[in-house]
């Protein structure tokens, strides 16, 4: 890597599981891949999850080795805390201008020892990783399993006391660091920019984010994770260990009032998964799932659902109309119970989890000229046969950037995007020296059919 230029085969944008897998699939075939991730660590949403359906593997056990493999792969220059600002095309492919945001800590020197973090005097809500439920210092390593293990400083809250400078063994802190610009030349691009979840204050019927004990499912993932904010499941208003927990399905999907007509595909499964994990963590708790349709369609998923039923998790068919709270901040759910002659009931729980949907993350139109389709996910013109090919030659999309999907499906599309990019490069390599072939000559070179 020269100082401000990088020549690679493929530029992968986004370091969630989709981007990591696509990078590995290409790098294992010998291609050079630059992986650009906006956040200080790769891992995407997946690294924040607790355990993953349908195998109930601990999520760190699946994700961290992939993160390490990416970080150590000889063919993958990894650029975290970086953004693609613009892209132009030339005869070889694309030239991307990449901004490397300053961490105020030298990436090459920092060992992630956290000495700085221990001496820094100010605690800030950890909004990036823990929804503000816990804290990090003004200087901090993003999380235990972050890759790279490099600290960064939130200068907006820094008092420049200099304690970290004194504490840092390798002298890695540098308050004068400036944004850097890097030019990346690549033959192909894979977009893996992922998704966002429905903002949990989106729905005013569900308290518009103002009820202390109504949380979203990503937050519950953190409560269930061994590295989570409380190290156990407590409700956020007062730290009570909840005895009664309810899930409200489709809170942000299949909801035309929010302009979201589609199904987010993962919420049924993650709610069931969380319910199972909760009944392990809190054996005495009652767990209810309010749903309209249970969509456990993947391999092994229906069996997962049936197991949950036998574990005593209560599945109630009904649309939740409203959530309010009582004087003890217990959420009260108003629901039409379809299996009880559509009787309307009010039920009180200790904690309510909104099974929020998947929304498109980043819109690549302005930077990459790749248009999005309905609902804001990347447009895939020939979606049946070429599910990762965008409208732009040489640019492919994988994972949830191209629509809601779970990790298994994401990994499949990552492999498919890698195959497309590789084929495109192979094709262009062959064509480069030769004059474009005429159609009849092509016909001579057709495949052999032995019928």
């Amino acid at each position, binding site marked *: 890597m020269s100082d401000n230029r990088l020549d690679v085969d493929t530029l992968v944008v986004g370091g969630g599981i989709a981007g990591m897998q696509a990078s590995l699939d290409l790098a294992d075939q010998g291609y050079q891949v630059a992986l650009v991730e906006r956040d200080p660590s790769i891992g995407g949403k997946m690294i924040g999850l607790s355990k*993953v359906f349908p195998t109930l593997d601990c999520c760190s*056990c699946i994700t961290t080795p992939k993160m390490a493999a990416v970080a150590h792969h000889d063919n993958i220059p990894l650029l975290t805390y970086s953004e693609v600002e613009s892209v132009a095309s030339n005869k070889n492919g694309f030239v991307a201008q990449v901004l490397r945001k300053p961490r105020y800590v030298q990436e090459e020197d920092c060992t992630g020892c956290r000495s700085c973090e221990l001496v820094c005097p100010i605690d800030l809500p950890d909004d990036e990783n823990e929804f503000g439920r816990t804290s990090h210092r003004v200087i901090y390593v993003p999380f235990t399993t972050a890759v790279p293990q490099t600290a960064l400083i939130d200068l907006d809250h820094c008092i420049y006391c200099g304690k970290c400078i004194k504490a840092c063994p390798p002298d890695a802190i540098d308050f004068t660091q400036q944004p850097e610009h890097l030019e990346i030349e690549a033959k192909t691009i894979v977009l893996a920019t992922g998704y966002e979840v429905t903002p949990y204050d989106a729905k005013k019927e569900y308290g518009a984010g103002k009820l202390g004990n109504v949380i979203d499912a990503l937050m519950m993932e953190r409560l269930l994770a061994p590295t989570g904010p409380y190290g156990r499941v407590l409700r956020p208003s007062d730290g009570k260990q909840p005895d009664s927990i309810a899930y409200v399905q489709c809170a942000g999907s299949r909801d035309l009032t929010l302009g979201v007509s589609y199904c987010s595909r993962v919420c049924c499964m993650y709610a069931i998964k969380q319910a199972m994990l909760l009944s392990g963590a809190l054996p005495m708790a009652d767990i209810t799932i309010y749903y309209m*349709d249970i969509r456990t369609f*993947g391999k092994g*998923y229906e069996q997962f659902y049936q197991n949950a039923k036998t574990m005593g998790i209560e599945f109630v068919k009904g649309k939740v109309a409203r959530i309010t709270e009582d004087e003890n901040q217990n959420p009260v759910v108003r629901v039409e119970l379809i299996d009880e002659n559509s009787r309307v009931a009010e039920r009180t729980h200790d904690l309510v989890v909104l099974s929020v949907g998947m929304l498109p993350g980043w819109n690549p139109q302005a930077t990459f000229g790749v248009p999005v389709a309905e609902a804001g996910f990347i447009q895939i013109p020939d979606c049946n046969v070429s599910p990762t090919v965008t409208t732009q030659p040489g640019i492919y999309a994988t994972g949830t950037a191209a629509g809601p999907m779970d990790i298994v499906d994401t990994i499949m599309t990552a492999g*498919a995007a890698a195959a497309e990019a590789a084929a495109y490069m*192979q094709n262009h390599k062959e064509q480069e020296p030769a004059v474009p072939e005429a159609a009849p000559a092509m016909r001579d070179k057709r495949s052999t*059919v032995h019928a």
Partner: protein
Amino acid sequence: MPDTTGEPVPAEKGQVQPQSASPDEEPRIGVYVCHCGDNIGDVVDCEQTAEALGKLGNVVVSRSYIFMCSDPGQKLITDDIKEKGVNRVVVGACSMFLHEQTFRQAVSRAGLNPYLYYHIGLREQDSWVHHECPEEATEKAIRLMSAGVAKARLMRPLEPVRLEAAKHALVIGGGVAGLRAALDMARRGLKVTLVEKTHFLGGRTAQWEHVFPTDEDARTLLRGLIEKVLAEPNITIHTGAEVVAAKGYVGDFQIRIRQQPRGVSDDFEAVEQAIAACPVEVPDEFDYGLTTRKAIYRPYEECTPAGVVIDWEHCTRCEKCLEFSNNGGIRLDDAPHEFEINVGAMVVATGFRPYEPPQGELGYGEFPEVITLPQLERILASDGPTGGRLEWNGHPIRNLAMIHCVGSRQIEGVHKPQPDGNVNDYCSRVCCTATLSAANQIREYFPDVNIFDVYEDIRTYGRGHEDYYLQASENRITFLRYVAEETPEGVKAQKGDQQPRLGRVKDHLTWGEEIELPVDLVVLAVGVMPSPVDDLVVVFKISPGHDRFLLEVHPKLRPVETAVTGIVLAGAAQGPMNIQESCAAAGAAASKVEGLLSQGRVELEPYVAQVDPERCQGTGECVRVCPQEDAIHLETFSVSGREVQRAVVTPANCNGCGVCVSACPNRAIDVQGWRLDDYEAMVDALTAEIPALEGVV
């Protein structure tokens, strides 16, 4: 503390010294106990375990950490190798199937031979099974890991078996998944051979006309794909062909293929006359038995390869068609021919078949008015039995009921099991959207038909799928919901009925009312089952899961690989998938194969038999007991002027099973990396009075 006794290895100019040069060097063992989040740590006291192991001989570092597999966890190991001179590594963590590779890579990054690392499964073999008794689990962890330490003391550097790999892949199945995989691999420069069991390409997709979520014409979709495949010089296609035998390993599989003759030459012209002359009539599987075809036939007009074939199973050799055969256009005496190819890897894309309801399930087989969704798809197809008109037995349909989840989401004890004793307890994934798509089409073309959709859950999950559901609701399709315990009763006809009725449906959308629906057609949205692959399972030693679909190693870490390296899966052979998902899976499979073969060589585990020529007496016992072909044989050597026989191993063919080790009367054979001495040391350690246990448990 063992932690501090380690003296840093002098590093020359910051370079890591390869430390595996001498097998005789003093072992300096690093032990690492992983908490695996709370998976191990909640049961096993990992700190105590690490502390206890630190007391064992040769252990220079012993640590525990929350996630050893994470980057900081791996860094503990690599730092200790570089700074503390650790030259043997023992990790106690999850299953080795998950992370053996991860740690091997970490160890080699630090300059150590990757086989100087040993993995102990503390999760599957300890914390998960003993979560009720943490103290004993901790003792077990210490014992298991001390056995690992005992093995580590004896470990020697090993080299993987490196082999040339054929840059040639086999694809089994010519549906969308197989076609797509072939195309992806060929475009990357691999040679591809595709075998398709039937005489035509396209698989099931050819049978649907209108496909969700794009409302494309399936034939156009297929034509586009097949055209691209045909244009690829790297692809060779054999139709009417099947794999009959296979041997070898990744990089070098020898595959035996049997191909049925078509019986009709490409340029045969009198097609229609020959078909008309054929007296044999059998149910046409392409129309799911709604129509019949002759023994000389073609499944549909624009099929690829074009032209007609003879169905040898039903052909009576009456020779009526030969009348039109001028100069051998039809050859009834052609025999199947067999040939062998050599490939480096293969993609199994054998697809699915629709569930066939047993006689009587919801009236199927009892009432002709009960049909399946694939049959309805054929009725709606313009080249189907009715030319696309919604008719049954010559009568236009007025009232139609569609029932979801027939043959899917079955419950043990309620539904009739398949021959293997298991019910289909899975969701078939494609039928909900396919049903609603068909319902909407009917609404569009036959607006007067009343449609009742009887469902349990509507699973229109994919991008664009929910629109079919919304449209169906807007289209005044009547939805009725049943619950699993109360499936609709089936179809019955009462005296005087003009039409049969769908009996008792307890509708949970309208106060649990029980309804009988008078309808003239009942469509069962049958689920999907894997194509029969029993023969391939045996030939390739791959495994089906509980649901009979072919099984991947791990749905997230290795989602398209089977347990046999070099054999990968694509499409509906692995589980229910729609076209888009099948094509994505095919791309992932192609990427995997590329990764394996693009270097032109593959590496196999070094755990193969090794003969000690000093001890070998040439008894040949090993050759007799070896279950593998060509793995071990006797060769003649001359030792001090005398001709003697000695056993010789062919590493590529040895699978390291160790049968020969137990048979050898002279203890002359060992499996590399797993020598008898290793086992003995480990067993001794497991059963020893472990000083390490003192004061711990």
